[in-house]
């Protein structure tokens, strides 16, 4: 294991400290318990957005704290959801009285910890709503399982719900917007390599030189199946087709296309995937109206990518275009 780190157990704290130093104009980093809140929080009258989850997915979530997106982010240990002990003070710190939306990726750990935090925060008089993101079509949804994972689509939920909050939407309305984004986004990912959790020191899984994992999550967990390596165009079809099908996206509809890097793949390759995905959507008569390409929801240094498609309408386009100013996503200001 070779990483630009010091003590493997201090990775999250030291990284957050550097993050806070680099973005001191934008946010404050709280240590012990660890959470990040935007400058000027709570924003009077505004519904607040809080998200969080295991670390190792940077810039998710702390990179999305700021105007027009999250009010607070709560980072757990690497690939481990944060605890109520962190979520509760973050929730309290950003509540203006207008209530707080917890945006939670659907993993047992995240769900349970946010659930406890929400209960206890409610008991303290804060109105909390929870929106689950479960966009990963690689996992079969079923009543009897943990359900689908929340992956790349989370960024889109956070951006768009954040804009709704800035627009002045009340708690239930912001929750509704977040839910509608979550309902209309699907994602699927591929890994060309595993990743190494610092405290473990061994790659999460090993792939032969001619193998790839289709349907991976974002925690270095193995995917649904392993196939022989193939060209970017073929891989792109394998990811995009189930996404579009599950979403039921058809000719004449409008979409946001998001090609997300897992951390160790060069940007140039993401654009090769984007090229093919855009062409495939075009062939299906779907108009790509907005796009996002880059490393936004990562798995440490994993090589690979995910493709997300979000069904757009006029309102979502407006909210997407609304100004945002965070460490990792910024426009309009």
């Amino acid at each position, binding site marked *: 294991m070779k990483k630009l780190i010091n003590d493997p157990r201090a990775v999250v704290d030291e990284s957050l400290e550097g993050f806070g130093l680099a973005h001191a104009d934008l946010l404050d980093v709280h240590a012990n318990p660890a959470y990040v809140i935007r400058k000027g929080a709570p924003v009077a009258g505004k519904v607040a957005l809080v998200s969080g989850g295991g670390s190792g997915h940077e810039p998710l979530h702390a990179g999305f704290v700021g105007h027009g997106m999250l009010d607070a982010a709560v980072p757990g*240990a690497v690939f481990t959801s944060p605890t109520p002990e962190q979520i509760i003070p973050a929730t309290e710190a950003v509540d203006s009285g207008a209530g707080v939306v917890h945006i939670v990726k659907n993993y047992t750990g995240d769900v349970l910890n946010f659930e406890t935090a929400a209960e206890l925060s409610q008991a303290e008089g804060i109105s909390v709503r929870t929106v689950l993101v479960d966009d990963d079509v690689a996992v079969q949804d079923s009543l009897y399982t943990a359900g689908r994972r929340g992956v790349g689509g989370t960024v889109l939920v956070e951006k768009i719900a954040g804009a709704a909050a800035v627009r002045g939407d009340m708690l239930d309305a912001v929750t509704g917007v977040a839910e509608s984004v979550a309902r209309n986004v699907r994602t699927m990912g591929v890994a060309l390599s595993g990743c190494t959790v610092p405290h473990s020191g061994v790659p999460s899984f090993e792939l032969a030189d001619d193998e790839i994992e289709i349907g991976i999550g974002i925690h270095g967990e193995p995917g649904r199946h392993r196939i022989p390596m193939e060209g970017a165009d073929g891989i792109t079809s394998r990811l995009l087709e189930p996404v579009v099908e599950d979403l039921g996206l058809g000719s004449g509809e409008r979409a946001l296309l998001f090609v997300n890097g897992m951390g160790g793949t060069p940007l140039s390759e993401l654009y090769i995937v984007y090229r093919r995905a855009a062409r495939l959507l075009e062939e299906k008569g779907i108009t790509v109206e907005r796009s996002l390409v880059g490393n936004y929801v990562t798995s440490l240094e994993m090589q690979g990518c995910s493709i997300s498609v979000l069904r757009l309408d006029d309102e979502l386009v407006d909210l997407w275009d609304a100004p945002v100013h965070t460490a990792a996503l910024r426009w309009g200001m």
Partner: protein
Amino acid sequence: MGLGVTWAIDWLQLSARKMAEHRVELIELDRAIGDSDHGENMDRGFQAVLEKLTESAPDTPGAALKLAAMALMSKVGGAAGPLYGTAYLRASTALGPQEDIDAAALAAALAAARDGIVARGKAEPGDKTMVDAWTPAVEAANEAVALGADAVAVLAAAAEAAEVGAVTTDPLVARKGRASYLGERSAGHRDPGAVSTALLLRAAATAAGFPDGEQA
């Protein structure tokens, strides 16, 4: 005579030692079908339990377990944190202010712990989770009580059953937790949470004076 607060504290301290010793093994198990953190999470959590024990001295077994519940809930994170946190909290509630825990009270506390996990996690037996260690442990404890066993023997029976339960997760296809994302590929691996459960219950028996096969 049953088990008192000394046992409870010994149990938690031995648990911390066991989690540290088995940290890498639990990480490895989790690496195969999860995200490589279970050993790290449990180790971190029980180190926090140890720390809390240096800060305050609980005076009943129930108080000791409540202290552990709080530490686990606030330091473990992941799925295991809230599940074990709830388990220890429910056990603590079941024990109430009793200073001396007899066999029946112990079995009831184990059942409460298991019920707490099921209530939070909604897993059923056979879903390849820690429930597959807790459920046989609770059943074995109840049987031992029915046969007139003392508290130490109840713990020994529970630990033994949990160990067997953990092994039975090997062929299962996971339906809850992270391993469920693997579908069929989760079969052939042991569930890390079931193993940590077996280790913790074994520590309970050892702390109560039952000879530990592992030669700790």
